[in-house]
């Protein structure tokens, strides 16, 4: 059912209806973009409850800006940008439950040196390495590597330049690599 609504014409119709006060139309619009918003927020914040709060705020902003989006053909780009901003605000207001600096200590306590590295353990190590990054670096990696956006799209979503984004991504990858090497050297 939703697949049939992916076209720009159908999306425009939904935006117009939602703008006229049709909440059912807005519900359909949310269904189209909920994966994009919630998974991005989850990847940026690292906590599902916080991500749900952030997504709620993003969709409320979407509702308030329907008029602006009627003329835009890049709703996804707008949503990425707002999601990054909302997550940034949320992090400033409510710092992450497990501080970033403790990530290495957490990894050291929980990994079993005798055990062969399982896929789950490796995933956990990668997740921890993401937490070590600065907010901008993490956003760049999430949008570029996990969401699959182009460098240009990432720059637009982060209100930055392509050169800055490239630098942030490369620095982030180097940091992650360094963390993983230390992690595995300690535990393998």
């Amino acid at each position: 059912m939703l697949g049939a609504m992916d076209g720009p014409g159908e999306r425009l119709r939904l935006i117009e209806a939602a703008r006229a006060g049709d909440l059912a139309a807005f519900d359909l619009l949310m269904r189209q973009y909920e994966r994009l918003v919630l998974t991005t927020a989850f990847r940026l914040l690292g906590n599902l409850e916080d991500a749900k709060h952030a997504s709620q705020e993003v969709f409320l902003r979407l509702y308030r800006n329907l008029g602006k989006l009627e003329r835009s053909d890049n709703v996804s780009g707008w949503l990425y940008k707002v999601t990054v901003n909302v997550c940034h605000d949320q992090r400033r207001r409510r710092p992450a439950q497990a501080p970033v600096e403790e990530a290495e200590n957490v990894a050291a306590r929980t990994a079993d040196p005798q055990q062969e590295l399982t896929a789950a353990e490796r995933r956990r190590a990668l997740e921890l390495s993401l937490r070590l990054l600065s907010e901008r670096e993490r956003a760049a990696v999430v949008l570029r590597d996990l969401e699959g956006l182009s460098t240009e799209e990432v720059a637009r979503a982060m209100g930055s330049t392509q050169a800055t984004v490239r630098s942030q991504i490369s620095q982030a990858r180097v940091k992650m690599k360094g963390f993983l090497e230390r992690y595995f050297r300690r535990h393998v």
Partner: protein
Amino acid sequence: MTCKDWEERIALAAEDDPGAERHLAECAACREKAAAWQRDLNWLKEAHREPIAPAHYAAVRARVLAELEHSRRRVWRQIWAAALSAAAILILFLLFPRTAQTPATVGRAFRPVAALPGGAPVERPAAARKSRPTLARRAIRKPAPVQHEPLVVKLLTDDPNVIIYWIADRKGE
């Protein structure tokens, strides 16, 4: 450039960077490093491929719709409150007509001033009385200057046939 210098550029191996690609072709250690990065990236993507349960999406949608309904009700409540207030004010006006001074009563307030003995009648344009009642109040507080008659002093002497009249003007000269 050393391998350390190339590190950040190789980290962006996915980006088109002919210089980094040339270095990778020549340096086995950096090739190994780039392959490890790619492997980690694939692991990271794999780790984040796990879908979020549909119930979480539904919860977000429900919260958003509830918030929108709530704000819509709040707007309607404000509209009703404003309409009821306006209606109440209108009813009060109809039931208790205004008793404040009208232009006519302002005019009456002028009359005693205009009738001061010896004073010039104070006249104000009708339009001024209507539009600026404060002028009327100012006029009441400051009465018009009174025109004094010449002062006559009659001096009697011992001789009944001699009477001296001293006539002084307003300034006492």
